[in-house]
């Protein structure tokens, strides 16, 4: 896998940002221009998080910093939170997924044979994983609710 430097990373984020803007305009009721501030903030958060993941010690992946930064900046009471929340309202979550999955689709073309080979196994495995996670959580919730006397 290729490692991009910070400038290349920024350019990629801007390219995907523009695509998301176009998708956001078509797919939701938000205007093109009014979504721009939100996307700029998202690009800034992503850049900051990626940089922290690369240069801070501890080996924590950039994705953890990105999510955490997004959380902190929108936590009620933080000075910029209201402004950022207002900007984010104009950027839909689903339109952001569309370009990413388009890239994913193109990339999967390379591994079609490998996917076809493990296809039905992955589908069965997915079902088991859904059941395992659901029941695992339900059991713990049941035990604790009972212990606390909430049910």
């Amino acid at each position, binding site marked *: 896998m290729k490692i991009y430097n910070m400038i290349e990373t920024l350019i990629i984020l801007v390219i995907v940002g523009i695509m998301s803007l176009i998708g956001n305009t078509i797919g939701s009721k938000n205007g093109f221009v009014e979504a721009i501030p939100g996307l700029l903030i998202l690009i800034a958060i992503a850049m900051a998080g990626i940089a922290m993941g690369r240069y801070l010690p501890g080996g924590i992946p950039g994705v953890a910093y990105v999510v955490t930064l997004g959380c902190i900046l929108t936590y009620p009471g933080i000075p910029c939170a209201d402004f950022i929340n207002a900007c984010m309202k104009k950027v839909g979550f689903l339109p952001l997924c569309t370009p990413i999955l388009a890239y994913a689709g193109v990339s999967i073309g390379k591994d079609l044979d490998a996917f076809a080979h493990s296809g039905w196994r992955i589908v069965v495995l997915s079902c088991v994983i859904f059941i395992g*996670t659901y029941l695992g959580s339900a059991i713990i919730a049941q035990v604790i609710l009972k212990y606390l006397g909430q049910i």
Partner: protein
Amino acid sequence: MKNFKLHGIVLVLVIIAELIGIHQFKVGVGVIVLLPMLYALIFGIFLAPKFLNVVNKIDMQDAGSLLGITLMLLMARYGTLVGPTLPKIISASPALILQEFGNLGTVFLGVPLAMYFGLKRETIGAAHSIAREPNVALIAERYGLDSAEGRGVMGVYISGTVFGTIFFGLMASMAAAYLPFHPYALAMASGVGSASMMTAAVGSLSAMYPQMSDQLVAFGAASNMLSGLDGLYMAIWLALPLTERMYKYIYKFKYGVYPTGEDAAK
């Protein structure tokens, strides 16, 4: 990065997919939701040399290495979705917070089954979590999505995207009907996956227990928001290391030696 053909193609896919828009229809007790991202994914696959032959090997490779960075934009949005709801989550029942450890149930069931099926490094990506967006981003960053681990996580992610919603709707009603769980516990468990999975699961529960409906929806939504945040930390510090370790021991058990070469952890 400079592959403008690839970006152009993706832009066209995005426009077509968004123009088609969201469609949903009822199937039995559940609802199947078709999202633009799903069309974009499928169209993208069909551009491969095997089908329409629009993209070449380099385009596909570039797309794979770009993915990790493109996901960061989505993760930033994810964080801003969770942030405003954090105070509500923190003040919620401890049961809500502790049930998140149920995510580890995925590993204990998933890893042995995946390896029984003969999957190798795919197991790490596929069975470490329920494979929603943060988990895909994590695997992309750590192993690359064009690796075996990446194929594993994408496989489960795509399965979840395609039939996860209807599966969760059915599973919740079956569990409520046949297993000795309180509806509150099931509602809290409904939040383990994506928002649409949670909506479907809580929807089924609300239909069965209309008098508890508000509480069920609140528990489901809070649990879902919480999963979005701590699911990632849990994957980094608990689930992924646990998956790697189980993988190693089951590999030894199955093949007689510890994994080496391509099968070993990187």
